[in-house]
């Protein structure tokens, strides 16, 4: 009797959590349209969005349309996509490398993308080309790490993490070179600002550009999510359970690299999200990747959208997003460590 009551309570708890994970992002998505220097009322937001899909007569000013569709929608969408992409990548990497301290840029993707962007800015590329170059160099950096680790016999996972650190600092050095030669009046601030991470340059075209890689990354990771449980128990054990660990790990790395590269290419380098959100989510839904991966998408999206809302409205000049995520993320991480929570003993 007591047992079934306990089970019921657990069930109700999990239903509440699921509902919150679905409803919160939607509410925050709609709510974020109202925040900003140009005031838009809740009804205006709904009308401006709805009238495109259903033919209703409105007397909204074109300015409202521009604000809702061309300024706020791309930015809100980008914040949610970047937050979700970094978080699911972090969670998948932590499972794949059986290491809770791994973040999505462990294989050098951020440094690679940063170098690509810095170079593109130096060569006065267009915004779109800066993003494309960043994306490509993100992939290049991870490929170097991957093939480097494959050339070793033995523990390739360890070699991959160590290789990632080496490749990451190599590209960081390249970034420094570019900063050193960049024009301090003009190019240098732009590079520095890009590296801090911000969504202020995002427009509709940049969001459209990353939709395909992001869609592929999300879908494949969600499809293999239960296998990640088995992989997280260690290679030998996963293999004895019939899992092709090499192939599965490659698939996860590919997906996470697509996602992180895409995210970094439009947002610049945003730290801590991919490390902290998976832990936060694990505290709420547990370590089972079946629930963990979908939940990180929701919580990651909500978190970065909230932070970005603060970034663009709290002060008269924008706060770079990457700075704020670190200011929130680092203390939170220490708090988790202090709590010594059960997920990473």
């Amino acid at each position, binding site marked *: 009797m007591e047992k079934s009551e306990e089970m019921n309570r657990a069930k109700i708890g999990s239903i509440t959590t699921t509902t919150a994970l679905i409803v919160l992002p939607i509410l925050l998505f709609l709510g974020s349209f109202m925040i900003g220097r140009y005031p838009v009322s809740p009804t205006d937001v709904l009308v401006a969005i709805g009238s495109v899909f259903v033919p209703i007569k409105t007397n909204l000013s074109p300015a409202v349309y521009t604000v809702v569709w061309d300024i706020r929608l791309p930015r809100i969408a980008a914040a949610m996509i970047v937050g979700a992409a970094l978080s699911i990548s972090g969670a998948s990497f932590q*499972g794949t490398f*059986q*290491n*809770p301290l791994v973040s999505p840029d462990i294989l050098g993707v951020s440094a690679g993308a940063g170098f690509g962007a810095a170079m593109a800015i130096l060569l006065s590329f267009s915004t779109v080309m800066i993003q494309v170059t960043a994306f490509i160099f993100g992939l290049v950096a991870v490929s170097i790490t991957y093939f480097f680790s494959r050339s070793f016999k033995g523990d390739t996972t360890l070699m991959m993490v160590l290789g990632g650190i080496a490749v990451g600092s190599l590209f960081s050095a390249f970034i420094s070179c570019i900063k050193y030669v960049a024009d301090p009046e003009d190019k240098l601030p732009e590079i520095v600002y890009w590296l801090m991470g911000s969504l202020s340059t995002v427009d509709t075209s940049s969001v459209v550009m990353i939709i395909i890689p992001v869609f592929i990354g999300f879908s494949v990771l969600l*499809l*293999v*999510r*239960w*296998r990640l*449980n*088995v992989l*997280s*128990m260690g290679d*030998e*054990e*996963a*293999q*004895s*359970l*019939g*899992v*092709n660990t090499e192939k*599965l790990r490659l698939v996860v790395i590919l997906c996470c690299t697509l996602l992180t590269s895409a995210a970094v290419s439009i947002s610049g380098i945003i730290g801590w999200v991919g490390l902290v959100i998976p832990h936060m989510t*694990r505290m709420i839904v*547990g*370590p*089972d990747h*079946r629930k963990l991966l979908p939940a990180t998408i929701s919580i990651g999206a909500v978190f970065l959208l909230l932070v970005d809302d603060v970034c663009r409205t709290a002060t008269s000049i924008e706060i770079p997003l990457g700075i704020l995520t670190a200011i929130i993320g680092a203390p939170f991480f220490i708090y988790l460590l202090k709590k010594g929570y*059960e*997920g*990473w*003993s």
Partner: protein
Amino acid sequence: MNQILKVDNASFSYNGKEKIFEGINLEVNKSDVLCILGPNGTGKSTLIKCINGLLNLDSGNIFLNSTNISEMAKTDLAKMVGYIPQSHSSTFAFSVFDVVLMGRAPHLNVTSVPGRKDFKIADKAIESLGISYLKDKTYTEISGGEKQMVLLARVLAQEPKLLLLDEPTSHLDFGNQIRTLDVINRLSQNGLSIVMTSHYPDHAFLSSNKVAIMKDGGIMDIGEPESVVTEENMRKTYGIDVKVIDMDDSRKACIPMQIK
């Protein structure tokens, strides 16, 4: 004779030069419990890993149900062979049920998640070992003896024909060692074949119908426990004096002599 496993002239080396073992021949039939004894570092665990396909032999062959394992798909091998490693830990705090459920991996394709049928099989495995009270506990927080039972449940959920246990009793207290051997006996009575390594010659008397002694990369002796676990063999294997005594009509015991 219902042969499940045949190891034929197997040899292995990690670097291609120094052989870990050489010329190993073994046969395991249905319901057999084969206990492999031998000093540290003779390649018992390595042999287990070769049978499981985790490592590849240098030469020789391993047959499961007359099929060479080098020609089997990994998932098919995992449907036939279950394996419990020597030491085990989990990075993440999975529930016991989630850990047992992982045993279903070879039966599911890459993109599927376990369904009702798999939940039932996992539940059955948990119940059959009498550990239902652990089901919702956190795997990283239970005791070593309980972990061993959970891993046994996982391997049962895998529904294999052959069980490979690498020192299943090494980290357990006295009571849990015997309880594990008891489970091993029950599983073999239900038709499973078991190969385990052990450091306790006594365990061979308690649970096995076959014993092999591995020493210096080869099999020194193999056969029934009574004929293999002898005072002379134990001296040769471990370099210590033991006394093998009759406990009653049906069982013997192996006792170390006094330390000089």
